[in-house]
């Protein structure tokens, strides 16, 4: 029976020298759907991806990918995973067609129709040389090479990096095309929140090697709330508020951003006797920035099952 999760890690940790690049990661990626992996530069996203693929050994902790131990993925498992790196590594002297012929030899399940579909979508000619391609075209070629083996799990490491808006849109469209098969999973890291908002079902946020959130995208957004408190005089000192991410004080008001706004938080805020208390929704980008910024206390939105 196929597992419910295509990726699952427990306490996955990797040190580089004395510095933990990834610390105690409990990550669960459900089968089917699109999973976005967010975090600042250097937060450890690529390190996680490389460990998942068996390209880097963890210092400690465990993980499974398609039911196989990440420390020793079998060639059969590797064949079911598509991996697109940030660098778009290709042989510069090859033509698009030669790249395909070369790559297809490694995969028993090569689907030429998928390859043609993707490169047409990116407007690539079969005879074009890699060295003459733009960055967006190289990305399209790499995506075609990655998708043609019809992978069960697609892992994309910052696929939108350096792409112009047209190439980025082609990339997003290709990802949506892929969801036609409901058992396919896409796991991708990105900084492009607009694209992410269009395609992601789930989101995980990594901050300095630590997982800060892992949930459906809608829950992430619904969990983060902005509250505006107005006062007739100088605002009082803020007491301890569970889940506070950010607080900004002005002459007559305090604006806070917090996770898990509930009766407890409401009670605390009401006890400050504001003349007005207004709760509003927040843009995804603001939610993420307040999450990764250095204000307020750190909080967690994690599924129940992985809460410590």
């Amino acid at each position, binding site marked *: 029976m196929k597992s419910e999760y295509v990726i699952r890690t427990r306490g996955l940790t990797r040190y580089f020298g004395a510095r933990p690049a990834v610390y105690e990661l409990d990550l669960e990626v459900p089968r089917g759907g699109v999973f976005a992996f967010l975090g600042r530069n250097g937060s450890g996203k690529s390190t996680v991806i490389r460990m998942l693929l068996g390209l880097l050994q963890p210092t400690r902790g465990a993980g499974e990918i398609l039911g196989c131990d990440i420390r020793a993925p079998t060639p059969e498992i590797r064949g079911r995973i598509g991996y697109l790196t940030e660098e778009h590594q290709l042989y510069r002297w090859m033509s698009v067609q030669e790249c395909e012929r070369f790559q297809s030899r490694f995969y028993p399940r090569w689907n030429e129709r998928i390859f043609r579909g993707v490169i047409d979508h990116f407007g690539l000619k079969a005879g074009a040389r890699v060295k003459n391609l733009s960055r967006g075209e190289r990305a399209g070629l790499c995506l075609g090479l990655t998708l043609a083996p019809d992978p069960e799990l697609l892992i994309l490491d910052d696929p939108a990096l350096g792409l112009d808006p047209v190439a980025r849109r082609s990339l*997003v469209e290709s990802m949506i095309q892929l*969801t036609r098969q409901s058992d396919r999973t896409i796991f991708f890291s990105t900084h492009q929140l607009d694209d992410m908002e269009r395609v992601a079902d789930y989101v995980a946020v990594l901050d300095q090697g630590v997982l800060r959130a892992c949930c459906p995208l809608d829950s992430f957004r619904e969990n983060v709330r902005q509250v505006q408190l107005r006062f007739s005089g100088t605002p009082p000192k803020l007491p301890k508020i569970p889940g506070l991410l950010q607080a900004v004080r002005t002459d007559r008001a305090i604006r806070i951003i917090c996770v898990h706004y509930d009766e407890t938080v409401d009670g605390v805020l009401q006890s400050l006797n504001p003349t007005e208390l207004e709760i*509003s929704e927040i843009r995804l980008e603001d939610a993420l920035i307040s999450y990764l910024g250095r204000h307020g206390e750190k909080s967690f939105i994690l599924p129940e099952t992985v809460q410590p």
Partner: protein
Amino acid sequence: MNLNITITTGSTTPIYKQITEQVRHAAATGRLTVADQLPSVRALAEELVLNPNTVARAYADLAREGLIESRPGRGVFVIQKRKVFRREEGRRRLEPLIDTLIGEAMAMDFTPDQLLEAFENKLSEWKYEEWSSSKR
């Protein structure tokens, strides 16, 4: 039939809500009428470049409200709009919207009479009989 839904990313309104709001608006203004067919989840998702699950969620919400109905094998259709909220609940949701309207109008130096007039003019453009058929 062209729905003309436009999606804004980076908004405070989640994408599925942008879809439900625009379909509701189209139904309320008569651009969509009973028995009109909507695009399939997959077709709308590809047209708007969205995850199909987002469109599915919007359609599910609209179906729950009784605005649309999915007929297996045939498609998604607009059906008679039924009562959505209890009267008090509806009023609770309506009030903040009216506050916003009045606040904005005051900031633009409209007098109450001018605001009323503008409001009545706009109201007459909407097909009131159609949405009043659900007597509350």
